[in-house]
């Protein structure tokens, strides 16, 4: 064995001994690393969550009436009421105490200036 080979053999023995004594990650270090990982994953989930778009006035109004379904129902009822009121008011006025169909027709005609 020449001088160079002796040096290499000696150093190899030292490297082997050093590798056998490599530091082992402590439980505390692993816990810190896993806590970091969890924090990064949580932050990423928050960032990637969809942000709701700002609501328009129409949306706010429809929400006030119970959403689109509620607002549609309300609009349909109003339309139906107006239609009944214009086409055959006697069916409505006959339910009002102290009125007759004729008197009501006159009053309705005077008020709305119609020729019923």
């Amino acid at each position, binding site marked *: 064995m020449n*001088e160079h080979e*002796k*040096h*290499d*053999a*000696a*150093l190899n*023995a*030292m*490297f082997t*001994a*050093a*590798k*056998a*004594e*490599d*530091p*082992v*990650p*402590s439980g505390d*270090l*692993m816990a*810190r*690393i*896993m806590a*970091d*990982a*969890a924090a*990064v*994953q949580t932050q*990423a*989930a928050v960032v990637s969550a969809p942000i709701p778009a700002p609501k328009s006035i129409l949306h706010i109004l429809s929400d006030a009436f119970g959403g689109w379904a509620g607002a549609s129902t309300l609009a349909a009822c109003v339309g139906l009421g107006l239609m009944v009121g214009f086409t055959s008011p006697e069916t409505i006025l006959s339910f009002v105490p102290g009125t007759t169909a004729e008197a009501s027709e006159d009053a309705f005609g005077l008020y709305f200036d119609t020729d019923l």
Partner: protein
Amino acid sequence: MMPFDSQSEISDDALMVLFANGDADAASALAHRHTSRVLALAYRMLGDQAEAEDVAQEALMRLWKIASEWRQGEAKVSTWLYRVASNLCTDRLRKHSGKRRPADIDSVAEPADETPSVEKKMIGQDRADALQSALQTLPERQRQAVSLRFLQELSNPEVAGVMDISVDAVESLLARGKRGLATALEGRKTELGLEF
């Protein structure tokens, strides 16, 4: 979700994707696979267990943060971590420069004499301690190259990749590093049972 462990055959690249998708088991598998090697390199570079742990934690933290942008097949996770850990060690060494000098191997306390029954184990421990002290006498780049090549067992091209230098430059650093180690250990070769 099935749990992963360090023996899992799932590639690092796949684990990075799983991690980015929020899989905690992927984080555990990556940490168990790489922390000990990163810690060992940092310890060889810094010679201080607590500082080495801080570097290992920071290197892994940077891995977690880059996971969502990780490009599969472009770099090995291990090489990437070694590079990050090496840079973190270099930063620390530069901050410490002027505050402390590399250890002089002759100034390292001799281990206490123990009973013959533990002699073999003590020789191994003595050699490991002596090498660690000898490493601290090397210039930073030689220490890094020697640690990566002979203790982390990377190939010369892998060391070149981590250090961002040519393979020729790695070979030069290794040759000088080995000569430096031999010189540092010269005075203790008999005690350590070495012949050179």
